[in-house]
C-alpha cells in the first residue's frame, strides 16, 4: 500500500500546490515528511526480509499492474527523495511561479512510481510523463536555446518511446502479458527465439534514449547544459536514472548482459573524450553524466551480485555529486557572469565561499578520492568485475574523469568576497554530507563484509594512482585542442544514431546466443 501511496500523494500535493499557491512552502515541507515516513516504512519491511509487492486494485498478477518494493526500487526512490529535498531547499528563496513546483512534484511522483513498477506499459506512460515535465522545465525561462534544446529532446524522446512501444507490441503478441515478473518465468524456455532478440533490442533502444547512453541520448548535452541549474541537477541526478532502472529490470528477463557492457563502455569512453574538449562547464558536466552512466551499465551487465550492488551504490553516489556539481556551478556562474571556463577563472573571486567548498567536495567525490562517495561505490563495483578488460575500461574512464576535471583547479583555490544564502547552504550541506558520509550510510543497504573490503589498501592505492595519472596527463595535453564530430548532436542526424544504436544492440543480442 505505501508503494502506490508514494506517487499518488505526490501527485495530490502537486495539484494542491497550484490550487493554493500561498501555502506552497508548507505543502513542500509536509510532502517531504510524508514521503520520508512512507519510505522509512518500506525500508523497514525490506530489511526484515519481506519486500512488499502489490498488484493495483487487487487484480491477479499478470493482468493488473504490479509494483515491487525491492532493493532496486528503494534505492532509486530514496535517491529521488534526497534530491527533491535538495532542490526544494535550493529554490526556497527563488521567485518561481507555482507552475514550476507543480512540475517538480509531478516529476518526483513519476520517479517514485518508476522505481517500483514492473509493468512495461506503465513504464512507458511514466517515462512519457517525466519527459513531458522535463521538457517544460528545461524550457521554463523561455530562452531560445532552451526551447530549441527541449524541442530536440522531445522529438528524440518521442521516437524512442515509439520504438519502445513497438517492442511492447512484439512482447505482448507472443506472450499475452506485460508484467516483467511474470515474463521472467514465461520467457525462460524461449530464450533463443529470433523475436525475443528483436523485442529485447527494441525495448533496450527505447529505454536507452532516456537513460543517457551515448548513441541514443544525443539530446542530453544541449538540454542539460542549457537548463536552469536546479533543473539540470534534477535531470542529471535523477531523471536519467529512470531509464537505467528500466534497463536493470529488463536485464532480469532478457539476455542483455553483453549489449549493456558494450553500451556502457562506448558511452563511458566517448563521454570522456567529448568532455575533455568542452570548455563550457555545464556542457562538460552533461558529458560527464553520459560517461558515468557507463560505469552503471557495465556494473549491471557483469551480472554478479557484487557488481550489481556496486552499480546501485554508484548511481546513488553519482546522483549526489552530479546534483551538487550542477547546483554549485549554477550559482558560481550566476555570480561570475557566465559558465564558460575563462569567465569563471577571471571572476573567480566573486564566487561565494560556501559554494566553493561545496564545489570542491563534489569534484573530489567524482574523481574518486577515498573515502568519499565515488571511491566507495567504484571500489565495490570493481570487486564484482571478474574480467580484466572490464577493469581496464573502468580505469580508463576514471583517469579521463580526473583529466577533464583538472581544468577546474584554478576556480577551486582562491579567495572569496561574498557569502552564500542560507537556504542554498542547507542544500549544499545536505548533498555534501551525503557524499562525505557515504561509506557509513551505505551500510544500510550493503552488507558490512563487502563494504569493509572496499576500504582496503589495493583500492586506495589504485584511487591515488588514478588521480596522479589523470593530473599528469592533463598537464601534458593542456595546450592541445582537437576536432571532434559535433554534427551528430544536430537534429538531422540524431534520429539516425538511435536506429544505428538499435542495430548494434540487435547484433549483439543475435550473436550472443
Amino acid at each position: 500500500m505505501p508503494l502506490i501511496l508514494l506517487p499518488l500523494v505526490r501527485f495530490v500535493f502537486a495539484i494542491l500546490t497550484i490550487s493554493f499557491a500561498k501555502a506552497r512552502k508548507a505543502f513542500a515541507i509536509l510532502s517531504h515528511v510524508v514521503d520520508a515516513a512512507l519510505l522509512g516504512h518500506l525500508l523497514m519491511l525490506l530489511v526484515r526480509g519481506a519486500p512488499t509487492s502489490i498488484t493495483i486494485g487487487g487484480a491477479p498478477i499478470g493482468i493488473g499492474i504490479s509494483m515491487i518494493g525491492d532493493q532496486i526500487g528503494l534505492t532509486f526512490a530514496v535517491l529521488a527523495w534526497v534530491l527533491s529535498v535538495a532542490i526544494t531547499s535550493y529554490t526556497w528563496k527563488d521567485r518561481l511561479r507555482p507552475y514550476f513546483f507543480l512540475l517538480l512534484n509531478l516529476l518526483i511522483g513519476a520517479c517514485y512510481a518508476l522505481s517500483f513498477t514492473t509493468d512495461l506499459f506503465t513504464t512507458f506512460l511514466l517515462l512519457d510523463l517525466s519527459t513531458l515535465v522535463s521538457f517544460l522545465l528545461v524550457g521554463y525561462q523561455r530562452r531560445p536555446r532552451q526551447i530549441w534544446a527541449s524541442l530536440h529532446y522531445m522529438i528524440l524522446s518521442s521516437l524512442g518511446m515509439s520504438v519502445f512501444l513497438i517492442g511492447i507490441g512484439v512482447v505482448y503478441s507472443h506472450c499475452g502479458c506485460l508484467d516483467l515478473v511474470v515474463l521472467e518465468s514465461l520467457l525462460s524456455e524461449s530464450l533463443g527465439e529470433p523475436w525475443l532478440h528483436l523485442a529485447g533490442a527494441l525495448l533496450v533502444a527505447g529505454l536507452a534514449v532516456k537513460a543517457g547512453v551515448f548513441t541514443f541520448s544525443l539530446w542530453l548535452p544541449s538540454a542539460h547544459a542549457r537548463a536552469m541549474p536546479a533543473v539540470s541537477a534534477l535531470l542529471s541526478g535523477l531523471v536519467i536514472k529512470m531509464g537505467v532502472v528500466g534497463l536493470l529490470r529488463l536485464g532480469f528477463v532478457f539476455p542483455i548482459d553483453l549489449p549493456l557492457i558494450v553500451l556502457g563502455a562506448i558511452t563511458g569512453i566517448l563521454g570522456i573524450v567529448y568532455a575533455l574538449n568542452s570548455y563550457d562547464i555545464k556542457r562538460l558536466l552533461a558529458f560527464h553524466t553520459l560517461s558515468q552512466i557507463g560505469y552503471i551499465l557495465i556494473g549491471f551487465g557483469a551480472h554478479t551480485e557484487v557488481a550489481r550492488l556496486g552499480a546501485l551504490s554508484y548511481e546513488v553516489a553519482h546522483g549526489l555529486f552530479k546534483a551538487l556539481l550542477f547546483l554549485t556551478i549554477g550559482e558560481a556562474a550566476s555570480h561570475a557572469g557566465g559558465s564558460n571556463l575563462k569567465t569563471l577563472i577571471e571572476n573567480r573571486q566573486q564566487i561565494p565561499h560556501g559554494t566553493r567548498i561545496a564545489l570542491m567536495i563534489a569534484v573530489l567525490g567524482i574523481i574518486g578520492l577515498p573515502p568519499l562517495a565515488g571511491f566507495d561505490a567504484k571500489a565495490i563495483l570493481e570487486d564484482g568485475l571478474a574480467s580484466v578488460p572490464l577493469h581496464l575500461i573502468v580505469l580508463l574512464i576514471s583517469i579521463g574523469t580526473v583529466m577533464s576535471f583538472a581544468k577546474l583547479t584554478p576556480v577551486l583555490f582562491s579567495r572569496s568576497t561574498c557569502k552564500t544564502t542560507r537556504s542554498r547552504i542547507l542544500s549544499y550541506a545536505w548533498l555534501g554530507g551525503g557524499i562525505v558520509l557515504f561509506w557509513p550510510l551505505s551500510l544500510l543497504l550493503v552488507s558490512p563484509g563487502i563494504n569493509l573490503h572496499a576500504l582496503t589498501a589495493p583500492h586506495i592505492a589504485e584511487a591515488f594512482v588514478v588521480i596522479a595519472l589523470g593530473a599528469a596527463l592533463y598537464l601534458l595535453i593542456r595546450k592541445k585542442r582537437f576536432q571532434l564530430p559535433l554534427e551528430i548532436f544536430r537534429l538531422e542526424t540524431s534520429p539516425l544514431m538511435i536506429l544505428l544504436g538499435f542495430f548494434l544492440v540487435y547484433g549483439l543480442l543475435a550473436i550472443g546466443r
Partner: protein
Amino acid sequence: MKRHRVRIIAATGIVLAFAILVSIMHLGNAPDPSDSTRYLSRALEETGASNRVAGVYLNYRLLDTLLEVLVFSVAVLGVRHYLQQSEGMELPDLSESEVVRTAVVFLSPLALLLCAFFAILGHISPGGGFAAGVIAASGLLYVAIAHGMGAIEAQLNPGRMARTEETILLALLIFALSPIAFGKLPLSDLLAKGTPGRLLSGGSILVYNILIALKVFVGAWAVIAVFAQHRGEL
C-alpha cells in the same frame, strides 16, 4: 551537393534496413488461433462492463488511465504557461453569417448531447470519457465561432475554468485513490457490478467516465481559448 546526396542514401538505407528487419523478425512459431487471452476470457465477469476495452482501461489498468489524464493536464498547463498573455487582449467580436448562427442553434446542443451519451454509456457501447470531452469542447467551439469569444468569456471566465479543472483533477485522483491504494474497499464497490448491458453496471466505470469527460472538456476548451487569445481571432 554530393554530401547531401550521401546523406539521403545513408538515411534511406538505415531506415529501410530497420523496417525490413522488424517486419521479418517479429513473427514467431505456428500459432494457435483458438487460444484466447486472459483479458478476453475474464473481463466480462470480473468487471461487469460489456465494453471490454472500458473494462480493461478503467478497472485493471486504472493507474495507466490516471497517468494519461495527468499527461493531458500537464499539456494544457504547459500551453497556458507559454501562450497566455497577462493582460486580456481585446478580442474582436466576430459574429459569422446568419447561416452559421442558425446552424449552431441545433449543432451545439447536439454535440453536448453526444458528449453526455458517450460519457454515460461508455461502459456499454463504444465511446468513453475522452471522446466525450473532445466532442463537448468542439460543441462549445461552434458557439464561439457563431457568437464570438466575448460571449463565452462573459459566462466562463478563464480563472474560474482553471479552478474547476484543478478541482475535477483532484476529485478524480482521490476517487481513484481508494481502489488503487487499498484494494477492493467500500468506495470502489460503491456502485455494484450489476448485469452487463444495463445502465448501472460495470461498477465505478460510470463515474470515471463522467469525471474524465468533464476534465477533458475543460482542458480542451482551455487550450482552444488560449490559442484564440494568442492569435487574436478564431
